């Protein structure tokens, strides 16, 4: 690792670039730490590129734009401020600290200001010290050969019946995507044609085809391993939504020296017991709320608070990992298996170090990943993994609980990881059934046959997954319900994203609430 700090400077073409040019022309003493990337407008730099610099080991990042009112394009100042503020909040949760990222504005003639700022910021970063994150450069490991992937998943057993394609919600939107033909192409050894690459990236891994395959091929996991195959080949990433922000975030969380600060926001009414052998694992919802606050305005962090309130209701005080990382689900399913394994080892190590015996989580993805994928990849967690619903069902079943009326009519969006992968569509429904029965209506496709929320692992989001989401929201509206209840924070994010549509908004808009939110608002003692 280098001893000196590195500061990445995104330099807007207009004001700051002129000022910087003047400094260069004057052969001014610009600090050696500064590395420059010139951009057309500060507003061009999205949050993924801001965070990417930190993932690659930058100690500080500066976005230099034009003075408010002087942006050539008008919108650059606001866009930059928004992107910077969101990313700073996320850096704060990551434990890297807001102060490592700055947005500063300059006029073309303010080269003195620019130089003074660069010197001062460099001094501040030197004082903060080096980042605990350093770019992970994997040893050149050979991935599993394609033939081995095909053999392990027994894809040869495919009878070419086409049930997978006829059930695939993505194929049904009209996209030229077919699990069956992808399987044949791979068996034939084709991983290079654009159609095959597109298909590997597009699969939602929702598992509908797994349900239907008479030969018991788990196509979703097959696609996951094909993504890993491509990733090892250095041939992935272009299909990642939000410009790969979440993959970058999770890879950053896999840095061993990093000490995240995930629970600083915890409301004071919630009681926890750090000595408890039962851990509540929150998942990434708190990141999502900062990332999506301007456009989608989701509040998925409430799921975490409400889950803890429900546990408190039953006098359970779990421990929390203040430096909780990430289960690694999205990295695994978007092809970065190395980073997934790094995270998994760090997590298990953290469980062991704190004497954790049971992990309770409300996130279907975290649940399935801990329970199934860790052991499947040879990582024994050493803990009992419990979904919050299982725990609540047991407690409520002991009696003396009554639910108040919420005053809403509800329908339910299944999560693929809980309802199909873990095979527990009954868990949320059991809880829903304890609420007033007459207020609940199922959608046309539900339970194990439920349609996906439109995305998994931030991969393959496109015009067709949008069409699928619109179809799903129309189904939800058709039930006549006024509240769409969800059990996964990502279902909320993705469906809310689909509602952002200037042309069809009125036809697909619907209120959403997580099941924990419904429960916490209605639960009471008899």
């Amino acid at each position, binding site marked *: 690792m*280098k001893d*000196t700090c*590195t500061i*990445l400077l995104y330099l807007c073409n*207009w004001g700051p670039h002129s000022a*910087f040019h003047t400094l*260069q*022309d004057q*052969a001014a003493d*610009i600090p*050696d730490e500064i*590395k420059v*990337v*010139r*951009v*057309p*407008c500060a*507003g*061009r730099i*999205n949050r993924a*590129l801001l965070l*990417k610099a930190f993932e*690659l*080991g930058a100690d500080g990042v500066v976005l230099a734009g034009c*003075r*408010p*009112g*002087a*942006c*050539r*394009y*008008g*919108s650059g*100042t*606001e*866009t930059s401020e928004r*992107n910077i503020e969101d990313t700073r909040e996320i850096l704060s949760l990551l434990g890297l600290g807001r102060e490592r990222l700055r947005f500063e504005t300059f006029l*073309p003639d303010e080269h003195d200001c620019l130089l003074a700022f660069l010197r001062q910021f460099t001094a501040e970063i030197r004082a903060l010290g080096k980042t605990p994150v350093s*770019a992970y*450069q994997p040893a050149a490991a050979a991935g599993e050969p394609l033939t081995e992937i095909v053999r392990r998943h027994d894809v040869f057993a495919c009878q070419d019946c086409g049930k997978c394609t006829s059930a695939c919600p993505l194929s049904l*939107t009209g*996209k030229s995507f077919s699990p069956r033909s992808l399987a044949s192409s791979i068996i034939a050894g084709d991983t290079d044609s654009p159609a095959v690459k597109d298909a590997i990236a597009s699969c939602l891994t929702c598992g509908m085809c797994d349900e239907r395959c008479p030969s018991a091929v788990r196509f979703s996991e097959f696609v996951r391993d094909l993504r890993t195959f491509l990733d090892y080949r250095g041939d992935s990433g*272009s299909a*990642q*939504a*939000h410009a790969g922000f979440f993959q970058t975030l999770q890879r950053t969380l896999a840095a061993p020296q990093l000490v995240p600060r995930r629970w600083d926001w915890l409301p004071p009414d919630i009681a926890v017991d750090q000595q408890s052998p039962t851990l509540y694992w929150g998942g990434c919802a708190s990141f999502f709320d900062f990332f999506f606050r301007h*456009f989608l305005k989701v509040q998925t962090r409430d799921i975490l608070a409400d889950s803890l309130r429900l546990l408190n209701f039953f006098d359970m005080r779990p421990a929390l990992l203040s430096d909780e990382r990430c289960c690694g689900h999205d990295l695994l399913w978007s092809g970065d298996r190395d980073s997934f394994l790094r995270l998994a080892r760090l997590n298990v190590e953290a469980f062991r170090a704190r004497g954790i015996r049971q992990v309770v989580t409300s996130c279907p993805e975290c649940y399935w990943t801990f329970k199934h994928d860790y052991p499947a990849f040879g990582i024994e967690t050493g803990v009992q993994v419990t979904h919050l619903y299982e725990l609540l069902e047991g407690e409520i079943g002991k009696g003396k609980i009554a639910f108040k009326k919420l005053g809403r009519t509800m329908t339910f969006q299944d999560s693929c990881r809980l309802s199909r992968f873990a095979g527990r569509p009954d868990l949320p429904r059991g809880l829903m059934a304890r609420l007033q029965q007459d207020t609940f209506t199922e959608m046309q496709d539900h339970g194990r046959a439920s349609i996906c929320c439109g995305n998994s692992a931030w991969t393959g*989001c*496109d*015009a067709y997954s*949008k*069409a699928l989401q*619109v179809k799903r929201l129309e189904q939800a509206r058709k039930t006549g319900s006024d509240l769409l209840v969800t059990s996964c924070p990502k279902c909320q994010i993705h469906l809310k*994203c*689909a509602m*952002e*549509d*200037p*042309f*069809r908004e009125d036809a697909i808009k619907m209120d959403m609430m997580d099941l924990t939110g419904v429960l916490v608002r209605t639960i009471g003692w008899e």
Partner: protein
Amino acid sequence: MAVLQPEARRNTFLEAARGLTADQAAREAERCLQCGICSQCLQCAGACAQIGAITHSEPSREIMENAGVVIIADPAAARRIAGEDVIRAYDTKSAGSDTLSLMVRGFAAAARAMMILGGKPQRPRGHSVSFSPPGPALSPEIRVGVFVCRCNDSLGWLEEMTGAINALSTVDGVVHAESITAACIDEGAAAILRTIREKGITRAVLASCACCSLNFVCSSCTDQRSRLKNALFSGTGVSRSMVEMCNLRGEVLRLVRMHPERALDCFKELIDSSIKRALMLKPLPAPARNYNFTTAVIGSSEAAVHSAQVLAQMGYEVFWFNPEAGREGVEHPSIHCFRDVQVTGVRGMLGDFQVLFQQAGTDQFIQAGAVIVSRKAAERIKYIHQKELPGRDISSAMQQAGRVGIPFMYPGTTSVAGLYIADPDGIKVSDRERGAAAAALAAASMPRGPRSSRGFSVVVDEGICRGCGRCSTYCPYQAISFKRNSAGGWVASADDALCKGCGNCISVCPSNAADSPFRNHAFLERVLEEALLQPAGSGTGMTA
């Protein structure tokens, strides 16, 4: 300057003039405007000894240029010249006070000049398709030429750099590598062009002080930088798409004197990465599009009426929409009046507008290339950016310090290219001059050459776009419109004649459907890796 008083210097030989204090001297030095008036120090001749461009004893010469009209913009210049064809683009009373008003006065002067010259050159009429002659396409064959400008050795040069350039001839694909004393002078650019032609170079790396090859002059592009680009790309047959430029002067040469070792490291990295980027160059698209040469003038304010008259006298055709019945008409054979009509909106864009109106209860529209609207009419009618979505206000707000969200615009222009306001608010010149200025803007927007993509426009991937509409909300130039896709939804597309390449839409796009072909997301990620993962010792290199 302080002077020693006679009382104190009596009977001594002390110097009477005490000189400046250090503070005073510094203050005086700061007053220097660097106006370049020669003080005969002869330093320039020394600095430029290499090519000897400066002849100190050169006598003054008289140069004669012929012009039909003279516009005088500086009150102090040519006071005694007068005549019908001498236009003074200032008003002595308010001159120098308000930049925006001065600009409008300048536009109006241009309009008068065009009127005086009107009819002589044939103005384009009617409509046509403007297309780019097929540009020098990017050849599939890779023959890289590397040209390194020594910037006249003004910041120094290292012999090792010459060695590094010579060593490039062994690099795969490189057919030529040389250093040039100065690329921005005529001889330098001509030598580069000659070599490109003689050696059949299909990808060129130019390391000088200019940072990009695009037809895009940002506030960093000084005279030298744009002069070099003009010399290389104007009518030479060398396409912008085949040249990769990097700012050698700023990134390397500035380090030569103080940190020669780092300068050499940076030099090698910069040339190396530029060659790699040259191999990834892509052709710049050149679309054909409809073009209408008529201007629609909507409204009956003094300024609007005058703009119609001025355009007609310049030789352009005008459709005049007079929403107020009874207002005196404007008589000119080139002005076609639409009376008793109700204009409801404006759609389309520069060269291809549709003015929507109602006449006797029927909805109609007429095509125009540019549109001038009176302020009063602009308050009433909407710019319909997308038929299915609510119309947008037509406004001409000017940037001011501290107020965000307004793009840079000339007074009278709006965020829609080709749509002007005849009498913009807050401009302290007469209505007639404001109208003339609007006419000049409309006339100037008519194409003289083909409109083509300038390379940095955003492209939206139709298969990925989800039709969320964010890009359209954030685009300051209304460059984004929507059409139906095969999945039953809507997809955005960016018009490369309107997109100015700021990329704000890219940073709000949730699914990465929007990206700029020139320096796209993958490119920026790679640049980050180069900048952050390279061994210590590299300098501020890797400027993208």
